[in-house]
């Protein structure tokens, strides 16, 4: 027996977008602080219901203090709202920051390839 719901069939799945962002700051920042700053900004700007409708989720395991690139998942209808919420982040912990959106993608794989410089097998063959 499974311990979590199985994947929905494509017609029932919600369309998602992955927003890749880069944090402009000279000091290293922890993932947890970045996560909290994004959630606070989204909740202040969009409210509880707006954040819920945007299906906001900050992906874990992508951000590292060295590269400072992270990814946010949201509903395809709420991309502009999430972009604005990211633009409104001014501080992470005690550090003043600017969040720059690198781009938007429909899959994590494509987002990693485009914005994190990850290479797939076919690119090596060429």
């Amino acid at each position, binding site marked *: 027996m499974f311990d979590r*719901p199985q994947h929905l069939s494509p017609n029932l799945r919600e369309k998602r977008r992955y927003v890749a962002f880069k944090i402009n700051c000279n000091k290293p920042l922890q993932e947890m602080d970045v996560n909290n700053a994004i959630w606070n900004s989204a909740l202040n700007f969009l409210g*509880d219901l707006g954040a819920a409708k945007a299906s906001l989720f900050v992906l874990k395991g992508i951000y590292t203090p060295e590269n400072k690139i992270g990814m946010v998942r949201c509903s395809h209808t709420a991309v502009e709202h999430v972009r604005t919420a990211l633009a409104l982040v001014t501080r992470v912990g005690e550090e003043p920051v600017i969040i720059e959106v690198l781009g938007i993608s429909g899959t994590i794989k494509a987002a990693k390839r485009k914005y994190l410089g990850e290479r797939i097998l076919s690119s090596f063959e060429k």
Partner: protein
Amino acid sequence: MKFIDLDIQSNLSTGKSSVEEIAKLAEKLGFSGIAICDVWQGHERLKQLKEKIAEVQKLVKIEIIIGAKIEAKTVPELKRALEQVRESVVVVCVAGGSYEINRAACEDSRVDFLAHPALGRRDNGLDEVCLNAASKNNIAIELNFREVLLNYRKGRAIVLSNLSTNVRLCQQLGVKMVASSGANSVLEMRDPRELVSLANVIGMELQDSFTTVSDIPNAIVESNRKKLEGKTIAPGIEIIDKGEKSV
């Protein structure tokens, strides 16, 4: 319109308020009926609840329905509880949260509705298999107001997101939904119109939102009463009394 709140706990189980307090406030709020769904703790406790309800029923005009909420940790435990409780109460609900329990509840036609399937989860707790089974077995999924009420900021956003996903999936797969307060004390009880607003806000049409508090709970109570009186033999087959016209 007749409004019924199907999920309220009294102080005979996990709740904090007495049946009398709950019934009086429900009458004031505009409900025509409430179901006291105390956590199932055996026949002795149920007998106490029935006595209490019989006492309070004389003091108020609204209808007080006897229900039971099954909080099982494993599937065999759930099946055992359902076997014991089904014949004794009008409304049976299962406390969800674990995917295994959610799925087992959706696959068992003795269950009336599944309460808070996403409780304590990051996901919505239901998938296509569960919802198709719920649709087939005529089991409703609950929209629990208490979950929204007790969470704050990020937690509330996650709860609302899960609820709206469940609403969307239930509408697409033809599963019924019931909105209820899930109250543990009188302070958590809300007006039926507010429950309608919650359902509307998270993605249901206003007309459909009204049915989650009135038509669907009424239909559940009516059909179960008929079953308990022995009028319904099987789905679609009813014993009609002498002198009554056939439907």
